[in-house]
């Protein structure tokens, strides 16, 4: 089995195709086949049901036609003017009727007995030696009323037709025959199955059995059933047709055989197709692989694969050749590329160092800026506090003390001057001295606060300047030098201011 061997770890193309295509295809074909078979069986069975029903109708029509034919024969005899005249003329009855009746046969029913009887059923003539009559038969009274009589039994079928003259019934012509005569109707022999005739009581009148139906009658009953059809003109008689299942299912078996054959042919075609396709596909691939292997072994990138075969292979070969060409081109420029990469790498390293240095500087400057900014942030409350000290507490206290003094002087003018040595006088004197002291303290503190504010403003200006010039590396060193100075001044000023404030508060 060439092509079925595995290559490497995978299956061969043929095996993979067989596994991936043939198996599902077989399943699909089987499923479709079974579905088609089921549909076909149902369709065929329905069609067969209709056909068997039509056959039953056809059988009923055939027997009805024959019965009609016999009845018509009886009517024709009854209407024959010789027959009518023979009711009247005894000479004709004696001379002409016997030979007439002896020669009287119904075509196809030679055994049928034809009788002529008078108005009371007494025999007049017959084509049979046993010329019995129908005296006192109840049915004969109906015939004498002008009605056709048909009686059906397993033993005999009787059709009686009135003989009428001037609209009056004066006798009857009766045809009698055994139901078995219908077995000889050639048309009934063509049906493959059991044909049964039943009378109104369901009694079997006769049966025509085709040989296959006997042995398969049960199956026929089970599968196809029986088909009944009353005779159109003789409603007391029913044709029952039980089709022979062998014959009936010949079509289905033929269909099954056809389906199986078609399935096998389909599978074989598919298998052949797969194998042939694998062969067609794998052969150029093998050549292609061998060529690639050779090129690989020779490392000769100048080599090329022949562009031949089906268009897909030509396309692949062309693509491979282009790949080889590209590969060769790539090999040549690789050394140049490596040199350039080296140069670029060196340049990159240099640039990287420079970049690191600059980044360090920039980071330091950034850090310095951040520190100065933070210092500035710290200076802001000091500045505010200094302003508050400058404008608020001591001044308000002095002013308040002055207002108290003025109120006191006003009260004194109203109430009279306190006496010397009195307690009021003592308090007033102490208050005056306190006011004087506060004025002095206030003056001194104003001086210190102004000095402090000047220093803070100087630091603040310096910081603003440093921040604005922070990105400039050249300013960095100057700032670094300024920082300790500013820091010392601020520290001193702050300490002084804090001491003064504590003192004032006390």
């Amino acid at each position, binding site marked *: 089995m060439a092509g079925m061997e595995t290559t490497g770890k995978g299956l061969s193309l043929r095996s993979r195709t067989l596994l991936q295509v043939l198996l599902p295809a077989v399943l699909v074909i089987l499923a479709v086949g079974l579905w088609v078979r089921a549909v076909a069986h149902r369709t065929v069975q329905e069609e067969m049901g209709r056909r068997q029903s039509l056959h039953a109708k056809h059988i009923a029509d055939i027997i009805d036609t024959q019965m009609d034919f016999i009845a018509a024969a009886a009517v024709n005899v009854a209407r024959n003017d010789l027959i*009518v*005249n023979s009711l009247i003329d*005894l000479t004709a009855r004696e001379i002409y009727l016997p030979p007439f009746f002896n020669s009287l046969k119904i075509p196809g029913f030679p055994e049928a007995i034809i009788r002529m009887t008078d108005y009371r059923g007494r025999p007049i003539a017959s084509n049979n030696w046993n010329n019995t009559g129908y005296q006192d038969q109840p049915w004969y009274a109906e015939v004498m009323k002008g009605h056709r009589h048909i009686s059906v039994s397993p033993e005999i079928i009787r059709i009686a037709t009135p003989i009428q003259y001037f609209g009056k019934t004066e006798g009857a012509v009766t045809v009698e025959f055994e139901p078995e005569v219908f077995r000889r109707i050639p048309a009934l022999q063509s049906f493959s199955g059991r044909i049964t005739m039943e009378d109104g009581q369901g009694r079997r009148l006769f049966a025509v059995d085709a040989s296959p139906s006997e042995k398969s009658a049960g199956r026929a009953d089970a599968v196809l059933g029986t088909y009944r059809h009353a005779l159109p003109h003789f409603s007391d008689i029913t044709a029952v047709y039980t089709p022979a299942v062998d014959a009936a299912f010949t079509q289905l078996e033929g269909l099954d055989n056809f389906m199986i054959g078609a399935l096998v042919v389909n599978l074989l075609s598919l298998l052949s197709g797969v194998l042939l396709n694998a062969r067609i596909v794998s052969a150029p691939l093998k050549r292609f692989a061998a060529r690639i292997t050779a090129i690989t072994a020779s490392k000769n990138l100048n080599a090329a694969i022949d562009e031949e075969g089906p268009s897909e292979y030509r396309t692949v070969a062309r693509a491979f050749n282009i790949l080889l060409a590209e590969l060769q081109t790539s090999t040549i420029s690789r050394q140049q590329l490596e040199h350039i990469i080296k140069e670029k790498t060196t340049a990159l390293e240099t640039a990287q160092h420079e970049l690191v240095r600059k980044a360090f500087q920039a980071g330091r400057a950034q850090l310095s800026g951040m520190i100065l900014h933070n210092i500035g942030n710290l200076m802001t409350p000091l500045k505010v506090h200094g302003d508050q000290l400058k404008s608020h507490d001591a001044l308000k206290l002095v002013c308040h003390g002055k207002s108290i003094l003025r109120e006191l002087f006003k009260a004194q003018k109203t109430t009279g001057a306190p006496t010397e040595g009195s307690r009021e006088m003592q308090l007033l004197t102490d208050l005056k001295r306190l006011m004087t002291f506060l004025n002095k303290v206030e003056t001194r503190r104003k001086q210190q606060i102004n000095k402090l504010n000047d220093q803070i403003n100087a630091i603040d200006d310096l910081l603003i300047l440093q921040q604005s010039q922070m990105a400039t590396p050249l300013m960095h060193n100057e700032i670094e030098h300024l920082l300790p100075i500013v820091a010392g001044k601020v520290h001193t000023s702050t300490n002084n201011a804090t001491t003064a404030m504590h003192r004032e508060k006390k």
Partner: protein
Amino acid sequence: MRTLSLTASAVIFLLVTAMPIRSAPSIVIGLDADMSSGSARSGEAIRRGIVLAIEEINRSGGLLGRQLKLVVKDHRGNPARGIDNLAAFGKMQNLAAVVGGLHTPVVMAELPHIHQYRLVFLVPWAAGAAITDNGYSPNFVFRLSVNDSLAGPFLVDEAARRGHRRFGLLLEQTAWGRSNYQSIKSALGVRGLHLANLQWFHWGVSTLADKVSALEAAGADAILLVANAPEGATAIEALAELPPHRRLPVYAHWGITGGRFFDAARENIAKVDLYFLQTFSFLDPPFPARAEHMFQLYQKSFPGVQSQTDVFAPAGTAHAYDLIHLLAQAVAKAGTIERAAVRRTLETLPPMQGLLKHYATPFASGHHDALGMEDFRLARYDRQGAIVPMGKPRAER
């Protein structure tokens, strides 16, 4: 005691007078005829004649002090029915006679049974020669009607008198037809006339065109037709369908008047030169006074009859009427209704004035036909269907 005797006498008188008077049973006259089939009118005509005669007799005290009664049975032209009817009549008590009419085949089939039951059988309408000339002895059949042995020569003579020399015979295939064939053939031979062609037909035949054409093709210059009403209408229809110059004149036996022939062939009758045998007509009766008396009785018994032309099949009625009076004379003379006695007396009846004729010797041993050729006449239908006699019977000429 006297009072007791008077009372007892009164009681006995009352008992006796209160007891129903046991009247003598009626004398039965049977009628066996076609009352409902193709010749039903013949049966009805006969029945009316019998009824009129019985009414007259009963009004005059009846027969032997007993009333007459009619019992009708319908044979529908079917011999089998006629035979069964005779069997019934044969078992009937107080039966004086049976009147049987139309058709010859029926009467012919009944002959053995008539003589088996020894029935006095009176025939007002059936012409077969063998009906009376039947070979039975004693012969119980008496006829007051046409006899074919006379009808044939009469028709041939009448046709010959009108210039016809070559005759075509169209006859029904029955005893009646065969009876006429013999008499006509004989009459033609005696008179040196030619039988151009003979055609038979059956009862119930649907067309006679081929047979009529055969007669015409054979060179017949007149047709002698022996048929009853249904087949007679068929024959006239076949003739009427021929071109006028090919329509042969027809001289028919009187059977066509026994049914609704005129109704069935009214249009065709006008196209064909048709003559037929008759015996009696109220339009030109041999004894007008008797006929007038009879007609008055007829009108009284059968309302709706305005004139004499309304009497259908008058010959049948007149024959039956005279026959019953002849029977009454025989019964009266015999003093019994015993059939053999009546039969014998009928052969020895005194002369009687009848409606048709003066019966000098109505019947005699070996002669059981009351009418002769001299009593025959031809007749035609007028446009209304009335039977119109042509000239006088030979007896009156």
